[in-house]
């Protein structure tokens, strides 16, 4: 394609992501989004106006050189596009799928200012990363000379992997310790196959392994080995263990059989593959032709409710105490859920879970709410409507209202300073904790957030760790 004028670029409409048909995909675990074809990707890439001061890069927590990689796609240089991505993002195939681009890079795209849909940056990122994984020949990675400095990464989730990816390229010796039997953290146990195929996570982890990152699974820092013990063997430590201690509703009946935290529900299905029982012997409550209610309005709630549909639920419903407008889930996830037949019930709060004599969940008692005055977050606070109670029949409930911080590291590392919620306190400009040589980032610092924010924290920490290793006296 010859060089286009800005006007010609702007005349191109944003290209939709091809998807599996909603009525087919809601009964399978295969990926919903099918990815751009080469033609769609090149045309979409041509829309980018290549701004001199690209705001999208500022909107990206890991500062991906967005116009540059998109230009490579427009020129058909997909390998180069992927390489540009990987300079700033250790997991582009993951981010291209799960990042909330509409709140980040795409939110500030020049097109949006002009009242048009932004360039589909996320879809293009996914395209380049997938193309490379499927087509590219392995090249010798460009690594800085080895420094001989050793860094321990605690937790194999997005924060840790991003930190590891940067540090290995900077020439350091990197070992990632993971408590579970697979690397990936929330990417493996939390986000479902239909949104992020596990094979893609594995490919990104394999790529890091080829760069020289060492992975140790089944190793719980705090128990198998403490932070203090790691300190004697490593020059620096990054803690990225995630949030991972599920909140419950604290209402009567939460002990009933059929009541899950989202973490448990999703871990059984994603990590342990309970949908393939008994070939995979980990069971999950049988929700076939049954009613499943998920409490919560975030991405995890959407993941859980769409998983319930795929397990065969006849009715899968989100119950949220505010309205659709306040739901923290990504717009695309809500749209997908609706298309697939998920029902939404807004302005309801659970009061009680009711079971039978055997302790099996049977009903849920809901308090109907209305929106009142705005609260500290600026969102209108839901308030109960007097005497407005509804009881509905239900077979399984999934509680997806967030996570607190896991106590294993803080309780075994008394020196480490945490706040009253158990989140590690860091200097956000460099992710330094109060312990010399120990950095932290991701959900264990911020509380439950997104994959890309955790990855951004991992990057910030990697840069600071590099500085520290060059000059330990600078701490």
């Amino acid at each position: 394609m010859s060089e286009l004028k800005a006007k010609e670029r702007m005349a191109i409409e944003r290209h939709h992501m091809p998807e599996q048909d909603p009525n087919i995909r809601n009964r399978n675990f295969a990926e919903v989004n099918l990815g751009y074809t080469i033609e769609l990707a090149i045309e979409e890439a041509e829309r980018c106006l290549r701004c001199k001061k690209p705001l999208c890069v500022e909107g990206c927590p890991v500062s991906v050189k967005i116009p540059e990689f998109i230009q490579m796609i427009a020129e058909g240089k997909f390998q180069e596009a992927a390489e540009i991505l990987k300079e700033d993002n250790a997991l582009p195939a993951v981010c291209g799928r799960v990042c909330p681009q509409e709140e980040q890079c795409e939110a500030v795209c020049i097109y949006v200012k002009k009242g048009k849909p932004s360039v589909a940056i996320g879809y293009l990122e996914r395209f380049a990363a997938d193309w490379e994984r499927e087509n590219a020949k392995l090249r010798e990675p460009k690594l800085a000379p080895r420094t001989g400095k050793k860094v321990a990464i605690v937790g194999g989730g997005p924060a840790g992997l991003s930190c590891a990816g940067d540090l290995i390229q900077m020439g350091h010796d990197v070992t990632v310790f993971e408590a579970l039997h697979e690397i990936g953290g929330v990417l493996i146990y939390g986000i479902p196959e239909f949104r992020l195929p596990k094979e893609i996570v594995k490919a990104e982890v394999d790529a890091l392994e080829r760069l020289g990152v060492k992975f140790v699974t089944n190793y719980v820092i705090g128990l198998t080995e403490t932070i203090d013990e790691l300190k004697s063997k490593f020059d620096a430590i990054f803690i990225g263990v995630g949030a991972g201690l599920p909140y419950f509703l604290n209402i009567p009946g939460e002990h009933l059989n059929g009541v899950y935290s989202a973490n448990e529900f999703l871990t059984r299905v994603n990590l342990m593959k309970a949908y393939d029982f008994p070939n995979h012997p980990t069971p999950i409550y049988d929700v076939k032709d049954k009613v499943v209610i998920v409490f919560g309005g975030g991405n995890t709630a959407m993941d859980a409710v769409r998983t319930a549909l795929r397990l065969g639920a006849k009715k899968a419903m989100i119950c949220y105490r505010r309205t659709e407008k306040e739901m923290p889930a990504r717009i695309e996830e809500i749209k997908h859920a609706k298309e697939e037949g998920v029902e939404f019930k807004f302005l309801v709060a659970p009061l009680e879970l009711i079971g039978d004599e055997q302790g099996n969940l049977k009903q849920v008692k809901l308090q109907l709410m209305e929106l009142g005055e705005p609260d500290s977050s600026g969102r209108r606070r839901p308030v109960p409507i007097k005497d407005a109670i509804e009881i509905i029949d239900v077979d399984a409930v999934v509680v997806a209202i967030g996570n607190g911080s896991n106590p294993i590291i803080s309780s075994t590392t008394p020196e480490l300073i945490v706040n009253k919620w158990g989140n590690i306190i860091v200097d956000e400009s460099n992710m330094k904790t109060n312990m010399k040589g120990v950095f932290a980032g991701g959900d264990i610092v911020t509380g439950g957030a997104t994959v890309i924010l955790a990855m951004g924290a991992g990057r910030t920490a990697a840069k600071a760790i590099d500085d520290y290793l060059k000059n330990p006296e600078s701490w």
Partner: protein
Amino acid sequence: MNKIVEARFIGPEVKLFKIEAPKIAEKRKAGQFVILRVDENGERIPLTIANSDIENGTITIIVQGVGATTKKLNTLEAGDFVRDLVGPLGKASHIEKFGTAVSIGGGVGTAIAYPTARALKEAGNYVISIIGGRSRDYVILENEIKQVSDEVFPTTDDGSYGFHGFVTQKLQELLDNGRKIDFVLAIGPIPMMKAVADVTKPYNIKTVVSLNPIMVDGTGMCGGCRAYVGGKPVFVCVDGPEFDAHQVDFQILMQRNRMYNSFEKEAYEHYCKIYEMHDKELNKSL
């Protein structure tokens, strides 16, 4: 992958394994557990660490074959490997010098009680062990228990060995005989632990039980192992596994442990089918 260095049956369907796990052997304390996966697709099952050998870098676990996974595990022999082993998980037993401590193990619970009984003995307690089983074959680890106890009372439900009756009856007998007991540890089937709690409550004897609920990750991440102690929810994997027996809601514990009963049966039948097929293939090839 962790190598099994020793494997032998010590009771009906009860098998002892020594498995290479140097780091866990070094770190573990009485009362802690591991999570194990037999093979690539396997489920994660919690097992209490019965013993460890720091010099040889092994831990001992004792497994009762009750479902698909444990029966599969019990087919493994020395030289085989388990796919995953992680630990030590949970909090260590709270050990202090109480005075006279009674350690009660029911069935395979004896294996779980053993390390704590030993720690109690090492802390200077006078240790009385009551080890129960359905019949003689189900009374396990008697020799090991003897070495860490001042007195040992085997009990059997059918009277085929030792005291004829339940462990609780033996405990009640000791109390009736005026023995001063300062601490009781009870580990075994839930009804047994509940019965022990009921016996000691009127005497106000501090009583601890080790809970074995359904778990997935074992690190506090999923909340599947939640139990109710003193009316409040706890995560057994990170807050336990040992709790004050007089505070535990055994009813809920039993109800939650029943959650997957029908699945366990199906998984077991599935496993048997595969195993039979495997056996037939093997016979054909021989």
